[in-house]
């Protein structure tokens, strides 16, 4: 009747490849092709610049509330970069960078944040638009999307496909029941799911330390018989390397994994939030020094993949892209003025009672318009 240590199948590793100065641990450097290295950089910058643009639009009243991603570009893109088009992407609501990577159009993002549901169906033109849907829309209730990822993973396994699912969530979500239920179910059914936790240290105003007593979030995976790893979430190479390992594991039928990306929410929770109420500027300043983009830029320059000139060209191009997207979006908004749209896409076929209600609203809208015109006339 001894009392002894139980050996668990997994221990939690920590992985960092580029330090905050952009210095590389050569031994751990992943083998990433050059075009992929550049694409990653481009999307990280796009994410950051689009964030700024959205914030500006919101501040001008041209768009509604949104959740910025600044600071988390490496954590999102390093992971999502591993997915194939047929793999599934299940985001929470702070993965705009990853969404763009997965093909979501800029104007779709703008439209939804501007309060137009139909923005969700605005897809990129061309080939990508014809791909079957493998991206879930954002999920606002924290952590609830994790279960959908498990269900999709179950389906992939049932259909004996080689696809994988990657789902994103924050540190706060690890306190939610759905996170635990999802991890547990994924463990039980060995679903091909990669759980990416963006530990950005703040769930609105509650710091990471107050979410859980655990030393790491990654260790929670162990409770469900799933391997977990903690990585420097501002080191895109580390995130990439960890995700590569997890995706390979899932794809080869060895089940789910969890990656905790230690990163930082540089901006507010959403544009309706004022972080100064609960956190010190010094902390933000400290994390700014670990900025994922500048670190990565240094690495790319050191590697001779990138030059200052190229950086400038790229930023200009991105600026153009964003501008034209805003323009297109605002054009579209004019067409989207019809309130009757709210009755669309509720059921596959609109039931009679909804038809009646829609008609009532239509009449009301009509009357309102007429009244307005009459007023104008006077």
């Amino acid at each position, binding site marked *: 009747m001894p009392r002894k240590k139980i050996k668990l199948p997994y221990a939690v590793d920590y992985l960092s490849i580029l330090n905050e100065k952009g210095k590389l641990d050569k031994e751990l450097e992943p083998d990433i092709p050059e075009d992929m290295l550049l694409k990653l950089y481009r999307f990280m910058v796009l994410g950051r610049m689009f964030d700024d643009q959205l914030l500006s639009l919101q501040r001008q009243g041209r768009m509604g509330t949104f959740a910025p991603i600044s600071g988390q570009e490496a954590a999102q893109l390093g992971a999502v970069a591993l997915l194939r088009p047929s793999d599934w992407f299940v985001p929470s609501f702070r993965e705009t960078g990853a969404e763009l990577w997965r093909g979501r159009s800029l104007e779709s993002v703008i439209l939804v944040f501007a309060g137009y549901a139909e923005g*969700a169906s605005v897809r990129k033109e061309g080939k990508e638009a014809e791909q079957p849907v493998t991206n879930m829309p954002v999920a606002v209730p924290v952590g609830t999307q994790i279960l959908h990822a498990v269900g999709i993973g179950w389906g992939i396994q049932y259909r004996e496909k080689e696809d994988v699912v990657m789902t994103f969530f924050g540190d706060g979500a690890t306190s939610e029941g759905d996170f635990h239920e999802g991890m547990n179910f994924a463990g039980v059914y060995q679903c091909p799911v990669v759980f990416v936790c963006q530990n950005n240290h703040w769930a609105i105003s509650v710091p990471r330390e107050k979410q859980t007593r655990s030393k790491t979030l990654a260790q929670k995976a162990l409770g469900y018989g799933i391997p977990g790893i903690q990585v420097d979430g501002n080191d895109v190479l580390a995130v990439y390397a960890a995700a590569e390992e997890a995706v390979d594991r899932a794809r080869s039928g060895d089940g789910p994994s969890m990656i905790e990306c230690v990163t930082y929410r540089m901006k507010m929770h959403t544009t309706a939030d004022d972080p100064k109420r609960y956190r010190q500027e010094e902390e933000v300043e400290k994390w700014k020094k670990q900025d994922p983009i500048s670190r990565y830029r240094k690495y790319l320059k050191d590697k001779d993949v990138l030059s200052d000139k190229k950086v400038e060209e790229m930023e200009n191009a991105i600026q153009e892209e964003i501008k034209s997207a805003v323009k297109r979006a605002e054009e579209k908004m004019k067409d989207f003025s019809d309130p009757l749209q709210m009755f669309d896409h509720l059921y596959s076929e609109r039931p009679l*009672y909804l038809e009646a209600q829609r008609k009532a609203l239509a009449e009301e809208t009509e009357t309102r318009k007429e009244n307005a015109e009459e007023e104008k006339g006077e």
Partner: protein
Amino acid sequence: MAKMTMVQAINLALRQEMEKDDRVIVLGEDVGRDGGVFRVTDELIDAFGENRSVDTPLAEAAIVGMSIGMAVYGLRPICEIQFSGFSYLAFHQIECHAARLRLRSQGLCEVPLVVRAPYGGGVHALEHHSESREAYYAHTPGLKMVIPSGPKNARALLVSAVRDPDPVIFFEPKATYRAFREEVPEEEETLPLGKSVKVQEGKDLTVISYGAMMRPTLEAAEALKADDGVESEVIDLLSISPLDHEACAASVKKTGRAVIVHEAPRSFGPGAEIASRIMEESFFYLEAPIARVTGFDVHIPLFSRETAYLPGKDRIIRAAREVLNT
């Protein structure tokens, strides 16, 4: 044609849909090896394997949440919540996602999901095992809320629910699970969701009910006929949402009087909605105020008092007589 209990009829529906369509997956607590605590999924695991009749860990939210993922992926999950009283643990998944993903994705994602759950009292169970909370789901846009009343319609409705592209909450009256048997044909039968059936024609009074309350309702109608010579028109709603308000209003236009029976609590219950619809659509035909025979606005009591809570034949007859004598 064989006579079946509702349990067997639902099992038949599941079996046949699973045979026809490999997208159909049954999952839930104890649904596999045990065949469900009510044996509704009995022997499906033997016929289709544990990949089609899936025993899940004990987590309602995960059962529904995972089913949503499966549905989006292109499967047709039928998940069982062991008792409807535990469906609230998955309520956020139903409300926030099942009911909304079509809208949120603007039609890119569909959730062809059926959530099956036994509901209602009359079986001497513990707390949380006897609730009748269909109003929660009927109140939620994007869902369909279906409640059969007998083996034959349970089978047909379930087949329709499984094939429906929208999420359907399918409440099974457990008091009726084995209460009686009906001829259920082996050949496929479906019933449209959102359509009621007129169980019997009548000219004096319209009685509207559904689920487990159909039995006392019909008994009351029979007694009213025998004792008072009253010919009741009895409507079995079958779907709470979409509500077949047209059939209700049309019948009241004929009879001028209506009694609505459900075991759910009275306030904000389905009866309130039905009564409003009748009032809106056939006010000038009404001869008397519409009566509701419902559960009280309390939690259904523990079982030694549940009979007093549940509407029965006598309570329905009393209400009918009041309506008729006005």
